[in-house]
């Protein structure tokens, strides 16, 4: 009893710190369309939108690696599918906004189900390579199907306009409106991710990650657990791809290439694998770094490369891991916060 009381009194200060930080972040995100242009320029509002989208993409990689222990270098496949589903349904099929969005949820999720059927059966190395190969197959397919995808030039479209009930509309031409739409979708997806990883399924994910042999022996169906994670990750990547297409009014074949997957992996590792907000921290810090460095130095990716290597060596749990370690030291507790 004594020790727990001691812990409680010590956690009070850091817990307050976390709450203050969270409130600041929420207030900032909700007022960004007015605050950010007033402080600097509208450009930064778009940068924040971009950070939100890439956070979501990194979250997709995180679901697989951080929670179930599968490193996928092929999430670009579902990102690209999300982006192209939106572009193709609106440009070629003339669908409205909401039906297109529905398709953007269905197509990557179903795609992840199909790829997952094959991929999650394989052991680690084969899984890594097979996910890359599947995304490459779609990359080449997209490049060769010029009439549908625009080939190397990509598929541009006009700023979307979404009809709401009572004659209201969402105009994506307005950067602020677009920002709120992206924020809403990303927050919703992170809430969903939180619900999934803290559910019974989430527990079975970490059980499989930590020891898949033991997990299978105590009765978990490792194949099904991995497949569920793969499908959920595909859904998240697909939504991120759709948002990025809407945001940039463009779908590009390069979204399918393994270097796009690599970006998601980098954000996740820098931010912290296995932490709910790791991808957000990673995407935010790397993109901030990019915006500041790229203005000064063309070869800023060199710095990003060095950071990745330093991260794998000294901070394998990323910035979120460092933060958790600092909090643990402050509270005198050894466990993750």
């Amino acid at each position, binding site marked *: 009893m004594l020790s727990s009381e001691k812990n409680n009194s010590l956690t009070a200060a850091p817990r307050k710190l976390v709450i203050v930080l969270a409130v600041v972040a929420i207030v900032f995100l909700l007022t960004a369309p007015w605050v950010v242009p007033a402080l600097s320029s509208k450009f930064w509002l778009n940068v924040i939108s971009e950070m939100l989208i890439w956070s979501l993409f990194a979250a997709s990689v995180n679901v697989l690696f951080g929670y179930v222990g599968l490193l996928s270098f092929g999430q670009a496949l579902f990102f690209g599918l999300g982006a192209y589903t939106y572009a193709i349904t609106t440009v070629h099929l003339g669908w409205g906004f909401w039906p297109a969005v529905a398709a953007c949820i269905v197509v990557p999720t179903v795609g992840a189900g199909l790829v997952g059927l094959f991929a999650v059966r394989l052991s680690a190395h084969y899984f*890594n390579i*097979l996910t890359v190969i599947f995304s490459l197959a779609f990359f*080449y397919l997209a490049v060769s199907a010029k009439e549908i995808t625009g080939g190397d030039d990509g598929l541009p479209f006009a700023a979307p306009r979404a009809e709401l009930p009572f004659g209201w509309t969402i105009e994506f031409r307005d950067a602020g409106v677009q920002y709120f739409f992206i924020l809403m979708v990303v927050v919703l997806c992170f809430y969903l991710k939180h619900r999934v990883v803290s559910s019974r399924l989430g527990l079975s994910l970490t059980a499989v990650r930590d020891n898949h042999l033991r997990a299978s022996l105590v009765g978990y169906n490792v194949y099904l657990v991995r497949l569920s994670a793969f499908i959920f990750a595909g859904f998240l990547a697909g939504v991120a791809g759709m948002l990025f297409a809407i945001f940039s009014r463009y779908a590009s074949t390069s979204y399918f290439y393994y270097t796009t997957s690599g970006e998601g992996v980098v954000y996740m590792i820098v931010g912290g694998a296995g932490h709910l907000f790791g991808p957000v921290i990673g995407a935010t810090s790397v993109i901030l770094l990019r915006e500041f460095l790229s203005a000064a130095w063309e*070869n800023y*990716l*060199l710095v990003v490369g060095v950071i990745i290597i330093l991260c794998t*060596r000294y901070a394998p749990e990323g910035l979120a891991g460092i933060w958790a370690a600092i909090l643990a030291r402050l509270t005198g507790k050894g466990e993750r916060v």
Partner: protein
Amino acid sequence: MDLIFLLAMNGLVWGLIIALIALGLSIILGLLDVINIAHGDFFMLGAVGCWFVLAAGLPFWVALILVPLVGLAFGALVQQLVIKPVQVSPSLSIVATFGLSLILQESVRATFGAAPQRISPPVSGTVELFGVNYDVYRLVAAGFASAVLAGFFIFLNKTKFGTRMRAVRLDKDMAIALGIPSNQIFMATFAIGASVAMVGGIVASPITSIEFRLGIDILPLCFMAVIIGGLGNLPGTVAAAVLISVTEGVLTAFVEPTGARIATLLFMCVVLLVRPQGLFSRG
């Protein structure tokens, strides 16, 4: 028919070059348990290194000696600095090599420039081969690549060091228990893998356009060779590299290059699902 012969020959030359890269990829995966995403960039460094040597006014053969030697040292350094600290975790090591890949590409872009460059082959002219005039340099390149491949297998199978490498690949713990200096073996394996990929880059440099993205484009093909040949099956990897490259080459007579690539990818998926041990491995 002439066209198909020509495409098959070109495919053979590229297949042997890809085999050089894929071999390194395979031994690094087999011994160090690392999927080296930067391996294509070692190939690119070889080509760029060759360009720098020629730009300095030195002849081609100097590049052929100098660049792989530098590559050996560079590979050893990279293994010590980047790979060794994260070798315990295969997933982290993949991420580290992705970072390495960014560093290598950006360093080359900063020094060599973003524009593609071409160099002229050290030997020019054509010879008549089955009624087709064929580029002499490509034949020399194929011969040289085959010689390096043969040298690699002799090294692996006939020397003491090669035997130790095979021992570590077969059973790491047992090899360490028997006193084989595994750290040296890991370093040497990575260095040799990097160096052989650079040889591939030098050989390929006169028949391709040299740029910092060269590695990104060739890496997927090398992975396919490793998978189709079977993980750990080195002769199988060479055979698969040549098979993929010749097949894709011949297919381009009938379909677009991307179509040929899709066909290879589908073939690889079938191999993965039906014969995950590889096309050329038993059991």
